[in-house]
Structure formats: structure tokens, C-alpha cells
């Protein structure tokens, strides 16, 4: 800053002719936070490194449908729609808090927060962006609705990720997210209260408003052999105010704790065609 001030004071002494570049370099240094590593707060189903801008409210509506393998009787899964509505607000450029409610087993409601730890800069002196993400889930469905009694302390779960991403160029962004899931309600004895894994995801822009995206989150600790890594591929379509994310994944969950730890696909491979299902997110931002 000091050097810049000195330079600014010196610059008018010099003659520049038509070449203003060195004046501009001082007046407006080319070192800004990298924007739009991803188009929304989610890459596909997983959270991205992005947070909602300061003073903006972001609404997300997501649908997950049933598996394609249900065939024509259920219109290849479209009969089984579950929906999530979510709102989040950017309190600052580095703090984003959200609340969501998912229409799936147990009717989970979650509060989540994302904290930007580092931001990649255009000059490259900070090579990547880092965001911490934590979501706390509680199952809100009554015992009557569930059909069995479930005390509060067994209704809790959480997802925590240290999301690290780099926008390599205008088109390509890649993300790695060490992941820790905690859950009280577990399907099998082999499933631990704590599960760990790493999420890998990316996007490639094919045009100004159209990108392909993909992600997978293999878990290496605390999940029994029954489960497979969650995978999804999709497209981002941006229309200005809205972003549409359409995707195909190997699970039908809306909540990320279940998606990471309870994805069950066919007997052979994590991408068994019979277990694929369609889903979409629609996000819309409002400046308040």
C-alpha cells in the first residue's frame, strides 16, 4: 500500500504519452479475488467453494426423482419426487448461513454455515480458494409419522467439509473436499458414528452460460462395505437471475450426510445404470 502511494505521487512527474498501462497498474492493481469458480453454492449435489454474496438472499429448490429402473409404470422415476427448499443469506463476503428442509425419510431440517478461509486471487499469489462448510441436521418427523420412537439425540447428524478449489482458467474449476460426516442413526453395525472421505468435483464451461459438472465422494472410514461412493454428473444452465442445474446421480438423496454414507447402487459398479436417477436444483438470488 505504501509503495503504491509513493508511486502514485511519483507518477504525475513522469510523462507517459499514450501509454497509460503503468498508471493503470498502480491506480487499479490487477489483483482481485477470483469470482465465479462455480456458478452456485453447489457443484452438483455437493456444496461448492462459493458463498452467497454479501447482502444477498439465495433460494434453492431441489428435486430428486426415483431411479430410472422403475420403468414406464413410474415414468422412469419421475413419480417419486422428493423436494428440498433452502434459503441462505450472505452476511458478509466470507460468511453464508442457510436453512433447508428436505422432503425425504425423517423430514430432515438443517442449518448450515459456510466460512471463506482463503480466496484465490487473479495475480496468483493465493493459488486456491478455501471454504469451511458445516451442516447440522435434525430429523423432524414425529414418531407417529416415522412409525417408531426416535429420541432427539438419535435424530442428529452433520456434514463438515474443508472445501478447496481452484479456478484454473475461465472454463475449468476443480475442487477437493475432505469430508467428515457424523450421524446418530445408522443403518448397520458396520457404520460408524464418524465417517470420513474426500469429495472430488469440477466444472467445465462449454459456453458463457452452459457448463458440465461432475462429482464423486468416496468414503474411506466409518462406512460399511455395503455402500458405494456417491457420484453425479450434470449441467449448469445460467439464465441471468436463475441457475438451473440438471443432473444424473447414483442415489436419490437430497441430504449430503446420507448421500455420502448411504448410497447403494447395483451389485457390480457404483455407476450401475439401474440405480441412476434424475435431479435438479434451481437457484435464484435477490439483492436485499
Amino acid at each position, binding site marked *: 500500500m505504501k*509503495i*503504491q502511494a*509513493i*508511486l*502514485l505521487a*511519483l*507518477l*504525475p*512527474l*513522469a*510523462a*507517459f*504519452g*499514450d501509454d*497509460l*498501462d*503503468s*498508471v*493503470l*497498474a*498502480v*491506480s*487499479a492493481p*490487477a489483483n*482481485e479475488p477470483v*469470482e*465465479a469458480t462455480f456458478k452456485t453454492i453447489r457443484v452438483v449435489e455437493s456444496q461448492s467453494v462459493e458463498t452467497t*454474496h*454479501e*447482502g*444477498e438472499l439465495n433460494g434453492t429448490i431441489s428435486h430428486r426423482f426415483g431411479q430410472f429402473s422403475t420403468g414406464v409404470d413410474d415414468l422412469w422415476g419421475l413419480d417419486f419426487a422428493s423436494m428440498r427448499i433452502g434459503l441462505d443469506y450472505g452476511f458478509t*463476503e466470507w460468511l453464508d448461513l442457510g436453512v433447508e428442509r428436505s422432503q425425504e425419510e425423517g423430514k430432515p431440517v438443517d442449518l448450515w454455515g459456510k466460512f471463506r478461509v482463503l480466496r484465490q486471487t*487473479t*495475480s496468483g499469489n493465493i493459488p486456491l480458494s478455501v471454504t469451511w462448510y458445516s451442516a447440522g441436521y435434525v430429523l423432524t418427523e414425529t414418531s407417529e409419522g416415522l412409525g417408531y420412537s426416535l429420541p432427539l439425540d438419535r435424530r442428529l447428524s452433520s456434514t463438515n467439509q474443508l472445501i478447496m478449489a481452484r479456478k484454473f*482458467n*475461465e472454463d475449468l474449476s476443480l475442487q477437493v473436499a475432505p469430508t467428515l460426516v457424523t450421524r446418530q442413526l445408522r443403518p448397520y453395525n458396520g457404520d460408524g458414528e464418524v465417517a470420513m472421505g474426500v469429495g472430488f468435483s469440477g466444472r467445465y464451461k462449454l459456453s*458463457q*452460460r452452459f457448463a458440465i459438472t461432475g462429482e464423486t465422494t468416496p468414503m474411506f472410514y466409518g462406512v460399511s462395505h455395503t455402500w458405494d461412493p456417491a457420484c453425479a454428473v450434470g449441467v449448469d444452465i*445460467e*439464465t*441471468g437471475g436463475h441457475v438451473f442445474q440438471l443432473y444424473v446421480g447414483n442415489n436419490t438423496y437430497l441430504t449430503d450426510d446420507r448421500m455420502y454414507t448411504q448410497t447403494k447402487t447395483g451389485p457390480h459398479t457404483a455407476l450401475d445404470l439401474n440405480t441412476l436417477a434424475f435431479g435438479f436444483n434451481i437457484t435464484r*438470488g435477490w*439483492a436485499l
Partner: protein
Amino acid sequence: MKKTMLIAALALLGTAQAAPMIATNGYVRFFSVTKMENIEGVCQTAVSSLDLETGKIAIKSRNTTFVFPDKLMQEHFNENYMESDKYPVSSFSGTVSGFDRDALDQGKKVAAVIDGDLDVHGITKHYHTQGSLLKAADGAVAGETLFHVKISDHGIKVPSILTATIADSMELTARFTWRPTGKAK
């Protein structure tokens, strides 16, 4: 980087010849009105040089320094419209003429004609417009202009779904205060 700039500045000091005036922290604003939405971006770090003897003027601004009331709009401005990664700088280069030099030196506000090429989004287009100049007691010259730019002229595409919110014609306002450099009279 900073060191090389310092050296460059010092090197230029040594070779100073006819010294144009320099403006930093110049103000450039564009504004679009539709029934749906107003769009306003303001840059306060544009730079310019002006030589009153020859009338030569040059302006540069970094696209990412335009600030919008709505941050998402700012992101879209850089990502979708200006493509600031590819075209980081917008510039204008031309002449200021037709002004009454004596009246200007006496401290009167004078009208001027501005002619030149505006380079936005990698496409250059010639503009002919009016502005004004006003000289302060300390020798600084303030100038301003307002004209309209069609974004389609500069190859900026707005999808048909958004033509109701983004006008093709943008009102462009620029205000600069040039200060004499060391060798100016």
C-alpha cells in the same frame, strides 16, 4: 512487480518530454434503464492522460473495478458480458478539440468536442460526442462527458430472455481531473 513498476516510473522520469496531464481515480459510470431493472456500474480507478496542446486524450479502466450495488450483477458483468478474463481493460483514445483555450485558462467552463475510438470487449468503435472542461486555480483540469453506447456494437450479447432487463443502450458518464505533470507549464 512493484519494484519493476518503480523502476519503470523512474525510467520514464528520465525520458520525460512534452508532458501530458495525468488523471488517476477517474470516474466512469454506465447506466441502463428498463422497466424491470436498472443496471449501474461505477469505476473510480480509471486513468487518463490529456495533452491540451495537441488535444490527445487516452483513457483506460480495468473492467473488474466496476462496482455494482448488486454483487451477483457484478459477477455476471465480468463473467457473462465483458468477459473480463479475456478483455481485462476498456480504453478510449482520441482527441479533445473545439474548445476555447483562452476561456479555459481564465477559469471558465468550456464545451469541447471529443472524437475517438472506444475499445470495449475487444471491439473498437468510433465515437463523436461533446463534453466540458474546467480549469482550476491550481492548474488541474476537470472534464466530463456523457454519451450513449450500444452494447451490441461491442459484441456483447444479451440472451433474448434478458432483453427486458438489460437495455442495449447504456448511458456512459465519465469524469476526470487531470493534473499537470512535472514538466507542464
